[in-house]
């Protein structure tokens, strides 16, 4: 038996899979970026939507992944493939080191602290620390992925690599939601005191969410840097963090379809209305307010109750 959601999911998957066949290169790039941003938004959602931690600095982890790949490739000549692991691990490590001392802060205090990390990160990039980051201009000339003499250099290659990355991310998210770890995050989110009293180590699971989210965002960052073969600070500033934050809440926090819809609404739609350059963000702001008023839990809110079928038998 298939329910409506899986049907929609499969239809979407097929559509996304064939997308490169019927669009021009500009839209193909938009499609690729949509996939990459979806991955970042999903990873933000681990922290914000699942663990319920007010986190508004996610672009930093995205940027750390991007810059790790860029620096290792441009400055040290490592092949892209060899930068993948560091691009995931560096954001994870930074997440641990920076967030561990402040993870106990109450919601809004943590929110400002995470904005702060993002701002510090941008200043580090702009001031070209150790001469590695290329300052305000960033780094360019990033290589493409090469495996056994084959170059994944076309936009279509980029698209499918991002597509696979999103697939892996969705796989991880599903496992997370069906494990003790994802559930623990929800319990903490819904009632921290009750969660603690059930034996859940709040600190551990909040950090787990941060580190996992940072790692996935880092992978997306690496992909992003290869797609554009360049990185620069403004792609990872607080404005971007606010976008990822908003994507999650507009789409529906902790809801996989919700976050994908959110990314579409917040990133692809504005691309479609590029002609209306000046007025577009005005309309956008109004739309954000209206969405929240009409759908306070997001366009496609999360639905709980995903329990094994044998437990549903007695339900009337």
């Amino acid at each position, binding site marked *: 038996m298939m329910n409506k959601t899986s049907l929609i999911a499969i239809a979407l998957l097929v559509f996304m899979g064939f997308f490169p066949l019927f669009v021009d290169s500009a839209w193909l790039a938009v499609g690729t970026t949509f996939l990459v941003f979806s991955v970042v938004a999903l990873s933000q959602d681990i922290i914000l939507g699942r663990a319920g931690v007010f986190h508004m600095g996610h672009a930093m982890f995205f940027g750390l992944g991007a810059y790790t790949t860029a620096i290792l490739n441009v400055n040290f000549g490592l092949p892209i493939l060899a930068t993948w692991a560091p691009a995931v691990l560096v954001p994870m490590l930074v997440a641990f080191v920076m967030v561990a001392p402040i993870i106990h802060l109450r919601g809004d205090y943590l929110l400002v602290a995470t904005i702060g990390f993002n701002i510090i990160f941008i200043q580090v990039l702009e001031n070209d620390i150790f001469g590695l980051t290329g300052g305000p201009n960033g780094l360019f000339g990033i290589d493409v992925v090469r495996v056994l003499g084959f170059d994944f250099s076309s936009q279509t290659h980029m698209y499918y690599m991002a597509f696979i990355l999103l697939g892996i991310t969705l796989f*991880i998210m599903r*496992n*997370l939601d*069906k*494990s*003790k*770890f*994802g*559930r*623990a995050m*929800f*319990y903490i989110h*819904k*009632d921290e*005191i*009750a*969660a*603690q*009293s*059930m*034996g*859940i*180590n*709040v600190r551990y699971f909040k950090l*787990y969410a941060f580190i*996992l989210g940072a790692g996935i965002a880092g992978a997306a960052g690496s992909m992003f840097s290869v797609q554009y073969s360049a990185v620069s600070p403004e792609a990872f500033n607080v404005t971007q963090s606010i976008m990822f934050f908003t994507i999650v809440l507009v789409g529906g926090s902790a809801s996989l379809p919700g976050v994908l819809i959110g990314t579409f609404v917040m990133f692809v739609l504005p691309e479609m209305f590029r002609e209306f350059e000046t007025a577009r963000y005005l309309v956008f702001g109004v739309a954000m307010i209206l969405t929240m008023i009409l759908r306070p839990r997001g366009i496609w809110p999360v639905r*709980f*109750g995903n*329990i*094994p079928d*044998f*437990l*549903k038998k*007695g*339900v*009337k």
Partner: protein
Amino acid sequence: MSEYILEISHVSKYFQGLVAINDLSMKVKKGQIYGIIGPNGAGKTTLFNCITGIYRPEIGQILWKGKDIKGSNPYKIAELGILRTFQTIRLFAEMSVAENIMSGRHIKSKQRWYNGVIPTPAYVRDEKANWEKVGELMDFFNLTEYATIPAGDLSYGIQRRIEMARALAAEPELLILDEPAAGLNENETLELTQTIRKIQEMGVTIMMIEHDMEMVMSLSEYITVINFGAKISEGVPSFVQDDPVVIEAYIGSDEEDEDE
């Protein structure tokens, strides 16, 4: 090791200089049902919060099997086998009944850190075993028909049952119940009394705050009476019931209530 599983000795807890618990001592035997009574604001819930690590008492010791657990993090205390319910129900309101009870399986689950990302055969078995346990508890508490319903949408009486099921899912050694009968009708209270008996028969030690005197007197083997944070009487129910100090305390507080 002594026959007492939990020993509270000379515990005091202050809030902004005001004493909420005053030099309180008591000893709970393994397998016992231990009642705590006292007028409103006496400090009963505060005592439970001190035992479960929500608050850290300034003075005194809380010995669990001889080891001081005062000021430990609540999750560590739960891991030791001390689980609780709350006076003001604290369920994960938007989550389903089954998911709520599953939270009790957290400390029993053997999933490894990487199972949040990758499933393994051991993880699959663990997950299945825990959900089955949730199924058993839903049967025990007559909650099966609500399995998928958000806990917050259910009636007060059912929510109280979910909270108990959730705590019991963790297979506690000591179950701490804060006014389990509050808000229940007569039938539900009767059912609850039987349930608590059954839990005791499973070998679980129970501490219980309760204002329903009939229930607490019939269930408890030993009772401590608290007023203004201090112990004013203790003993078997028949003794406490007739203790003039206790009667005085309750009458005194009743009069105050009526004055309002």
